[in-house]
């Protein structure tokens, strides 16, 4: 596989990412499953990159989950999105960052709808005015949070205490990436690297010393999908999609999976646990499961934050093998701070 043409594709799908003064729209679920992720993102921007990022308590969900499940009508979604923009105007920001990839896709979809069907924009303005008395202007620049880390990956590089390198062998770690579907598949020109070879995560992996694993099912959806997932009986369907990806990763001895979408991270983490319990299967090197981290978590980890202080114990797949490989010191007893911790299946006790 040659990289030269990939570089050309990545170069042709570059997009504008604003420099500073961001408004941060958090994800509905990311902080429920991986609580420290968003806190770390804000800390990285404020402390390590000296940027202004506004964390607003007044913003709500973007209703992406509801919209994609056909529970929330499009007009409601557009009005809620308009309110988010209005809050952004209020604090004087022009640049919008979404924490969730589905949010990102939704905001782009709404902005595109407003552009191509101006009557929807005027309707939304009326709805918002009637419901809340607010007015709004869309942001100048709207990106996903992983775009910011991608943009500043070389600025962060000198601050990293660790790299994506195996501490014992000095070989790069095998890192598989999974980019959320709504990042680039709907609007390829809005994703760094386009839809076929997105670069937002592979760029970060490469810059920080890791080896990018292009496994055959890289483009396959993790199966989150919202609409079918909300019903418990359908979850085997989602599970099967993720398993298809894991089986494709197996020959490559992957050390770490990196994601940018909160749903994907949740699924790829949890379904490996389910595979271990129901099918006795593990997909990583040395008969272990593959740790799944979000881009904020890996950044914080490599910057030197204590793994248990950034919430890595909340992952269902134990991250200790990864920490050992990178050479990060951690305290076993501080993992669950006094409690015994959750009961793990035998197959995941290593």
């Amino acid at each position, binding site marked *: *596989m*040659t*990289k*030269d*043409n*990939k570089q*050309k*594709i990545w170069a042709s799908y570059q997009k504008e990412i604003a420099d500073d003064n961001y408004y941060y729209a958090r994800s509905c679920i990311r902080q429920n499953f991986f609580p420290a992720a968003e806190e770390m993102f804000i800390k990285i921007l404020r402390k390590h990159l000296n940027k202004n990022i506004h964390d607003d308590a007044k913003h709500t969900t973007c209703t992406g989950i509801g919209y994609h499940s056909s529970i929330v009508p499009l007009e409601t979604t557009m009005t809620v999105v308009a309110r988010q923009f209005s809050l952004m105007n209020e604090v004087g920001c022009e640049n919008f960052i979404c924490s969730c990839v589905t949010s990102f896709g939704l905001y782009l979809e709404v902005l595109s709808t407003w552009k191509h069907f101006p009557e929807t924009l005027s309707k939304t303005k009326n709805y918002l005015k009637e419901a809340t008395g607010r007015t709004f202007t869309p942001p100048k620049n709207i990106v996903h949070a992983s775009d910011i880390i991608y943009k500043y990956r070389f600025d962060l590089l000198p601050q990293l205490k660790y790299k994506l390198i195996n501490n014992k062998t000095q070989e790069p770690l095998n890192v598989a990436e999974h980019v959320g579907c709504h990042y680039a598949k709907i609007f390829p020109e809005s994703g760094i690297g*386009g*839809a*076929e*070879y997105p670069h937002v995560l592979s760029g970060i992996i490469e810059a920080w010393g890791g080896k990018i694993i*292009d496994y*055959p*099912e*890289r*483009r396959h959806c993790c199966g989150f999908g919202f609409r079918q997932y909300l019903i418990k009986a359908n979850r085997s369907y989602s599970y099967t999609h993720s398993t298809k990806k894991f089986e494709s990763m197996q*020959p*490559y001895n992957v050390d770490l999976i990196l994601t940018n979408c909160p749903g994907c991270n949740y699924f790829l983490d949890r379904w490996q646990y389910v595979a271990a319990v129901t099918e006795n299967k593990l997909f990583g090197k040395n008969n272990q499961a593959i740790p799944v981290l979000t881009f904020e978590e890996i950044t914080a980890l490599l910057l030197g934050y204590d793994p248990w202080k950034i919430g890595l114990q909340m992952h269902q797949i134990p991250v200790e093998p990864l920490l050992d490989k990178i050479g990060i010191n951690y305290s076993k007893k501080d993992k669950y701070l006094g409690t015994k911790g959750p009961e793990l299946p035998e197959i995941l006790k290593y």
Partner: protein
Amino acid sequence: MNTDIVVFGGGIAGIEAATSLHRLGYNVIIIEKETFLGGHVTLWNKLFPNNKDANEIVQQVISSLNNNITIFLATESTKIINNHNNTYTIHLNNNKIIHTKAILIATGYDVFNAKLKEEYGYGIYDNVITSDELEHILKQNKRILTKQGKEPTRIGFVHCVGSRDRKVNNIYCSKVCCVTAVKQAIEIRQKLPFSEAYCFYMDLRMYGLNFEELYNDSQEKYGVTFIRGRLSEASENIEGKIIVKVEDTLLGRPLKMTMDLLVLMVGMVPSKGTSWLIKELELNFNSGNFVSSLDEHTKSNLTNKKGVFVAGTASSPKTIDDTLADSRSAVLFIHEYLKSF
């Protein structure tokens, strides 16, 4: 210098027309951008449907050239001025200036740039090649090997790459790729008797004389398997083999297959020369951006500019017999035009 007709393009269309025009008594100049004559046909190995050696055609066409025809090789035009008195002034990059009564556009086509179909991984995955690259390997009689140095046991041909595709803005059909795929599949099976060949097609356009027979032979004698479905993606496994995903539309189920080598049947797009001449001469062009004829049925060699004629693949994708016939037809139109002076 003065002349009756300038022929842009020293491929078979241009040469065939030049030879006949010269025999009719006209002063002809050929301008060719490469260092050799014969155009794309010089790159082909064997021609469909009868397996003729492409060299034969090239030699036949070139050998009828007369020494009194001026040929500028490795030359391109930098400017063309329409003098609006039924003459054109052509500036060449060798600093010569030609005054001519008529122009024949025979600048032909280029193959589609397969890198634009990102999902097929051309230029990224080692074992994805284009049909003209395969033809080149066959012509040089080189061993067909994967990038890993092994003989491929499974070779796939992907039809309609860059044609019939709105995503790359080429809605038209490139006409020759289907029968070329059948031909190359047979050639592969002949060269590598232990291999399997697969063609992934949307339709099989076997319209011409002996095409259907060739298709029959490919299935009956050479065991080529045809799978109706458009390739959605090609990815690479850990051994460097190509995994393809296609819908087996006739069975109504998705299909996944690992191949050693993937050949993309790239279509025809107007060549850079053709596009430049369209702009420079302010010619009408059709939906494929080829030169538009004044009438498809009765005036296929005439353009919207008086004195400017077109022959060969500069106006649409064509086979070799189409091209030669078109070229001779252009000669008659040009002759009638020049006689009237």
